[in-house]
Structure formats: structure tokens, C-alpha cells
């Protein structure tokens, strides 16, 4: 359940920013989460209500943009979509690849009143 500490980190960052912007209530938090980021979206959503209680971000709507992962083959340099770290290059069938995107997990924006 690292989702709870993740949710707390998000709320911490969001409320810090909201205070810098004048201390208004946060009504929406936009997150971008790669499919390889290692976060369970269901439990993350579940944790937000507890993590945000009593803060500027209580009752904020959480909008999650899921980002697909992309890899590049070490052997033939082809780029291809991957769903997990267990993947093969569709061109040369190799297992060796570097992850180009899909591990990101960021706060995109907040909306405050």
C-alpha cells in the first residue's frame, strides 16, 4: 500500500502550491501516470479521500491521464509499445530494451478557487 504515501506526497505538493497561489480551495488535481509507474489507480483514488481530509485539497476531483509505455529495442533500435517489463521486440524478438516512456508520474495541474 505505497499508494497511501504517494497520495500524501501529492496532497503535500498540491497544498504547498495552493498556498503559494493564495490559499484557495483546490477543486481539481490532474495527474499523469505511466502504465509502468507501479501505481494501482484504484487504491490511489481510494487513498486520496483520507490523505486530503482537512486540507485545501479535500473534495478535489482527481483526474488521471494514463500514459502508455514505449520501449526501444537495444538490438535493432525499433520502437514499440509495451504493457509491462516483460515484453519482446516485435521486429527482432529480442528481450533487451530501454524504456522510453511510461514510468512517469507527475502532477500536471491544479485548479483552485
Amino acid at each position, binding site marked *: 500500500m505505497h499508494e497511501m504515501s504517494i497520495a500524501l506526497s501529492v496532497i503535500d505538493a498540491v497544498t504547498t502550491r495552493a498556498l503559494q497561489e493564495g490559499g484557495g480551495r483546490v477543486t481539481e488535481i490532474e495527474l499523469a501516470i505511466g502504465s509502468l509507474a507501479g501505481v494501482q489507480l484504484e487504491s490511489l483514488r481510494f487513498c486520496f479521500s483520507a490523505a486530503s481530509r482537512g486540507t485545501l485539497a479535500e473534495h478535489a476531483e482527481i483526474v488521471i491521464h494514463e500514459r502508455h509505455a514505449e520501449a526501444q529495442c537495444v538490438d535493432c533500435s525499433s520502437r514499440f509499445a509495451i504493457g509491462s517489463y*516483460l515484453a519482446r521486440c516485435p521486429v527482432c524478438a529480442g528481450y533487451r530494451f530501454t524504456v522510453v516512456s511510461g514510468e512517469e508520474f507527475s502532477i500536471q495541474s491544479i485548479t483552485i478557487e
Partner: protein
Amino acid sequence: MCDKCGCSSGGGAVMRRPGNDTGHVHIGEDGSHAHHDRDHEHGQSRKIEVEQDVLLKNNLLAERNRGYFDAKHVLVLNFLSSPGSGKTTLLEKTIPLLKDERPVTVIEGDQQTTNDAERIDALGVPVIQINTGTGCHLDAEMVHRAVRELDPPEHSFLFIENVGNLVCPAMFDLGESARVVVISVTEGEDKPLKYPTMFRHADLCLLNKTDLLPYVDFDAERCRQYALQVNHRLQWLEISAKTGKGLDQWTAWVRSRLAGL
């Protein structure tokens, strides 16, 4: 609730030393939440672009730890595994083989008890136990606080035994020099496929308890292949912390990491 001082710190992490029942330090409970206790006029909404990594705070602190370790030439290994894979036994067998070459200090992570720290303390090396409470992993701040207390000497080894868990600790950089994931032959050989994030971000995989191979249906080569499919850069060693088999290669690997310091 804290079981020592009765404070209601919830799941906050607590730092303890073996043999010191009364003193402990709570980590990261400075009330990081900004409380909403003012009335606001509800005017127009404003969208603010943030574009910030969620783990930014942890990652910055991890880099700060790393800089400190680099400056003091401390080789830091983060040990990760499921509960019961033999991490503490591995440390008990490894420390006597290395501590005459360089000082060793240890950070133990568990949800509760100082049992593991007491086993390390018996070897005569400085150790700090971090009890994470309900937390499922160590983070860079906990390590930062523990390191300030431990004060590892220059040119030393620091071994961090993370909370037994193959999921959550994978996400949290502690500032370590390398990650060592331990699996044992009493687990399923498909562990690397089930927990790919952990294996993807590890530098070395130690297959432990190989003395039990004759008694279990565990295909070590297949497990290695699975691990390499997930992480083609992963190094692999087979050991038995109990019998000592493979510990020469393992300690040679540890020494090889000193070249980067």
C-alpha cells in the same frame, strides 16, 4: 499509536537502537499537511500548470543522501526481497567477511520489532532499526534521519535492509549505490514475472537457500531466464547464506562495487 511513548503518531516511522528501549525518534511527522481552516470567497476557478514529479521530494532527498555517501566514499546497498527470503541471515554471514576490510553500518527496516537489529547488533556493528509502523517501505527521508544518527565512517559499507515487500520499496530511491534483490528457492520461480518492477530496477539478484534445491521444485535456470527477460542488465548469483556456498562470489561482487567510489 506509538507503542513506546503512547503518542498517536499513526503510521509514522520510528527510529530505534538495540539496547535502548526508551529513546526513539519519530520520522517525518512535522505535520506536512497544510490545514484548511480559513473561509474563502468562492470566486472564479483558476487552473495552474504544475508539471511536477510526484516523487520529487523523495528523489531530491535521495540524491542528497547519494551526494553525502559519495563524498564520504560509503558504499550503500539496498537489500530488497519478500519477507523470509533470508536478508538478515545473509547480512549476518556477510558482515563478518567484510568488516575487517572496511567498517560496516546497518539500517534495518521493518514494520515492527527490533528483532533484526538485535541480530546485527550481536555482530558488533552499529545498527539502527527503523520501524515503519503501517508503512510498507523505507523512503529517503527515513534513511536521511537514520544516517545522521548512525554517522557512517568514511570508506565504509552501509547495508540497508528494506521492509520485506517486493512491490512498494521498488518505487523509492534511498540514495543507494546499488540494489540487491534476494529471492529464495522456496518461493515461486516466476517471482521476477510477478514483480517485474522490483527486478527491473535491481542491479543484482541473489538466489538464496540453494542448499534446499534438492528438496523443492524450483528451476533455478528458468528463474534466472525470467529475471533476465525483465531486466537484461541484471547480474545473478546463486548462494546459500546458511552453508556459505557462493558467498565468495557475493563478497567479490560487493568489493567490485568499490571501484566506483
